[in-house]
């Protein structure tokens, strides 16, 4: 399937069909998830309604990490197999992942203040997510700094893979250290500990945000491919004249 995407023409055809569909699914899921999260889900016993921030904070956190993992996979594909669209995919995911990381950090602070009485603490989870955010920024800076696209994509791929070492640290930070941030309650070896009345709306919101992110990535990839086509046309014209 992945190799089927290697052909830009084919990707453009497939994404043209997929994009409106996945955007529609995202909107539908938000239509279900949003009232559920804000109204129908029960408030937390101790934190009352402030815990509703969870329904945007947790999906943002998951996407921050998932998008970086996607970038890392694309980087491997780009470096090892020279997959034609891998660098486009990585480049498209980066700003979106960075944005969701920022959302995660800010909504986390907005949740932390009523819950812990602190906007920010330097515990392992928050610090490693902040590091993830800076790695995203460095990745974007590297793409911007190198003019030649091939070189830029390979350099960025190297940086992405080096920074991937941070991902397990983020994930396991709440297990390896005494953190103020709560331990994992969904993605655990023994299964989720969260009550279904909270877990189900969370999953719907997470799926909604994921579909939105997927649509955004597809759209950005299309932009890069269209731009590449325009550039190669311009180059060919210049050579012909």
């Amino acid at each position, binding site marked *: 399937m992945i190799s089927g995407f290697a052909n830009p023409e084919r990707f453009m055809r497939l994404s043209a069909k997929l994009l409106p569909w996945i955007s529609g699914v995202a909107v539908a899921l938000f239509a279900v998830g949003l009232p559920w999260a804000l109204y129908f889900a029960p408030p937390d016993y101790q934190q009352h309604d402030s815990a509703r921030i969870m329904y945007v904070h947790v999906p943002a956190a998951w996407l921050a990490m998932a998008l970086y993992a996607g970038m890392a996979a694309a980087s491997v594909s780009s470096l090892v197999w020279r997959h034609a669209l891998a660098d486009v995919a990585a480049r498209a995911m980066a700003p979106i992942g960075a944005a969701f990381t920022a959302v995660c950090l800010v909504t986390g602070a907005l949740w932390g203040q009523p819950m812990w009485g602190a906007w920010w603490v330097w515990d392992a989870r928050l*610090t490693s997510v902040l*590091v993830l955010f800076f*790695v995203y920024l460095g990745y974007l*800076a590297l793409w911007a*700094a190198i003019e030649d696209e091939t*070189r830029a994509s390979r350099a960025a791929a190297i*940086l992405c893979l*080096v920074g991937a070492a*941070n991902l397990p640290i983020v994930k396991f930070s709440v297990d390896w250290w005494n953190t103020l941030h709560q331990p994992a309650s969904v993605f655990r070896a023994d299964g989720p500990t969260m009550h279904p009345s909270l877990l189900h709306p969370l999953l719907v919101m997470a799926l909604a945000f994921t579909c939105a992110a997927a649509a955004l990535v597809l759209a950005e990839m299309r932009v890069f491919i269209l731009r590449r086509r325009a550039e190669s046309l311009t180059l060919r014209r210049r050579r012909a004249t």
Partner: protein
Amino acid sequence: MSVLTAFTGLFRRELSLAWAGGGGAALPAAFFLGMAALGPFALGENLDVAPKAAAAILWLALALATLLALDRMFQADLEEGVLEQLALSANPLEAGALAKILAQWVAVGLPLAGLSPLGALIMGAPPAGTPALALSLAVGSLAFFALGAIGAALAAGLKRAGLLIAILVLPFLAAPLIFGAAAGARALSGQAFAEPLLLVAATALFGLALAPPACAAALRLHLD
């Protein structure tokens, strides 16, 4: 020539370059001590700086001094064509990168670690903990150079490379910095510091494992 002989040759060459070229360690050392001297002023302390703050200032100074050294690390060699020769030679470029990292550590990192007791004393820290502090900085600077070299290699030859290196490298320096400052603070307070020190060593080993292949791959990009 075996790889080991070539490696030692490279290492010695890098070392002599780092020391010879206008006293390679002098600028980072001046910067390092300058920060230590300014620390008490910045903190507004009349007498002594708290151990935690003293360790933090020295570790920050080490990180920033490392950035200074990283800026020049691959730049001159790239310009003078030395890197091309290295890449074309029979020896792996990874070995060359490792030799450079170790040479920078010995030429710049270790002297700064050696100066740190002086820095700590300037800030009024008790002398008893300063050898342990120096040890933590010695190990930490190896981590800084290993991880930092990756950024230096990626940015080699680019415009405003120094700024880009800082952006790329600072997130990675965070890990040894966090553990190292903790180790330094504990050492200066007379507490047990083995645990964070071992974590610094772990980041250094991790950096040493990751840096040679990453640097070589990045340098090859710039040579194409």
